[in-house]
């Protein structure tokens, strides 16, 4: 298992959010490589090594940070596809979204999300959240080994 080489997949369409998240990862000294995809379709292509990512080495992402409101294919659909496939359903998926709607929360967990985090408006809180999230999922948590 090539976990050391596997990436954190950030599924996020908003470039400002991408930049703030990456900045925070750097600040928090999380060394894991981060791969950013900008819509649901690209996320699925990357995860299942299809389309533009057909040629990549079949290593499952270590962690998927998933926004819900995405162009083309929505976050919940991406989540469903990941959790429906035995090859990928072991990958921890953390929903990281602006939405605090109860129905999103319920739908996320029903589809098998491993965690649901609402992005706080206060950037201090956001930084704290990302630090703790990285520390938990990338250092403390032992995920099920998976390859694609």
């Amino acid at each position: 298992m090539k976990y050391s080489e596997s990436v954190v997949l950030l599924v996020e369409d908003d470039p400002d959010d991408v930049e703030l998240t990456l900045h925070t990862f750097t600040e928090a000294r999380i060394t894991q490589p981060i791969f950013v995809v900008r819509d649901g379709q690209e996320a699925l292509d990357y995860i299942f090594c299809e389309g533009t990512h057909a040629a990549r080495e079949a290593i499952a992402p270590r962690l998927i940070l998933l926004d819900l409101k995405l162009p083309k294919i929505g976050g919940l659909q991406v989540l469903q596809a990941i959790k429906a496939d035995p090859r990928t359903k072991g990958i921890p998926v953390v929903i990281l979204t602006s939405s605090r709607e109860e129905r999103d929360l319920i739908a996320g967990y029903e589809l098998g999300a491993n965690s649901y985090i609402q992005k706080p408006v206060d950037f201090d809180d956001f930084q704290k959240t990302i630090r703790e999230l990285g520390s938990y999922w990338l250092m403390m948590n032992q995920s099920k080994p998976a390859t694609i």
Partner: protein
Amino acid sequence: MLLSMMVGRQWTAHQRIVVGLSAAVLGIVGLGMSGIVRLTGIKDRAHLIAADSMPGLSYTTRMELYTYRKSLLIQKHIVANNPAEKRAIELEIQSIDASTSSLLDRYRNTPFTEDIERPLFNEVVATRPPYLAAVAEVLRLSRGTTTARGQVDLQKLFEPYSRAFLGALHASTEHNLGEADQAAQRIEGSVGAARRLTVIEALISLLLALMSAFLLARVVAETESAARAIQVLNLQLEERVGELTVVNKELEALTYSVSHDLRAPLRHIDGFSKILVDESESDLSEFGKRAVERIRFGAQQMGRMIDDLLEFSRLGRKDVARRPTDLRGLVDESVEILKPAMEARDIDLRIGGLPVLECDPALLKHVMVNLLSNAIKFTRDSKPAVIEVGQVTSQETTGQETTGQQTTGKDATGKETTGTEMPVVYVRDNGVGFDMRYVDKLFGIFQRLHRREEFEGVGVGLATVQRVIHKHGGRVWAESEAGHGATFYFVLGRAAETSRNSGARH
């Protein structure tokens, strides 16, 4: 009068049908009864009239009959040729005389209704003896007479007496027959009058029946038109429900969008501001640093407002699921939630006896958290802060409710549902309080009675409290004096009333 009462607008359709039909039926039955009574009267009178006229009639008729038969027998006696035959006729005459005598006796004892009959009868009685004498003489003479000449002479001798007596008898009979005729005419007259009255009654009955039919038709028409109106209203209502569903969907989409899309730029403003300070702190002037700080405060404040507004909207859409809830438990949970805000504070929290309320515990917890959080916030400068939670005793309740109605003048909700038995709960503090002049703004959304730099908060808390209490069919009000603390009261409506208002189930 009756008609105007029947068609009067103040009567319900049901009352009008009952009253109108009852009146018509009573009228028809009454008229029928009066007809029967009248006919019975006619029958009785006819009996009386017949009884009055018949005795005289029957006596005189029989008397006339006997006398005619007797004169016939006398004539037979006169023309009879042998003594044996004459003897037989004489016996027959004696038998008729006996019948006549007994008839006369009975006739004398019969009461007469009219005086005119008496002289007629007297005439009969008076003419009878000479007639009988003549008969006896004729019979005596005729015994020896066999010639035709003698027979004619005898008949001539007999005739005047016979005519006088028979004339008197005939007059009496005629009179009695006349009487009978008059009686018959009187009966006929009564029957005729009865017939006319009956025809009038039948016409009146017909009129009443027509009026009933008209009334029924009118009520049926009104009912039908009301049913049509209801149908139209139902269709309109369905349309409105459809529109509302669409609007509600749009509102939900908007809420979602607000929740998701409006928070993102705020996050960016706050995030990049923070990075600006972190990365270029040395390049920034004191004013620049302060400016960035204000930018971040503004963004965070707006984030809180959006969150609170969403929460407020979410509570508004939520159904009330009532179950018996120990308010004490809710207060304890709320205090636990508010622990961070109470840290490093000198707060004397006094929790008194609290009722078990039929309420939605999740919603009521919002109420308690908000009221307690306010009390904690506004006693910041009170040393020590005293916060009391309790239940108003029934004696106080009346007084407090009166005050409450004055203080929350516009708050009409729940006035009818506020039963004296429903417990009134209060949260009291010895904080800064507020000026009662602005009490009507207290429960408005984003309304604040203090300057923002004095006390934090966005002004949704009490609006949320009011919304939850209203959803329970209850009332919330407050009393205060600036600088002398504030007391918030609430009372819930009864469970059945609330479920009718909000469609909630238990």
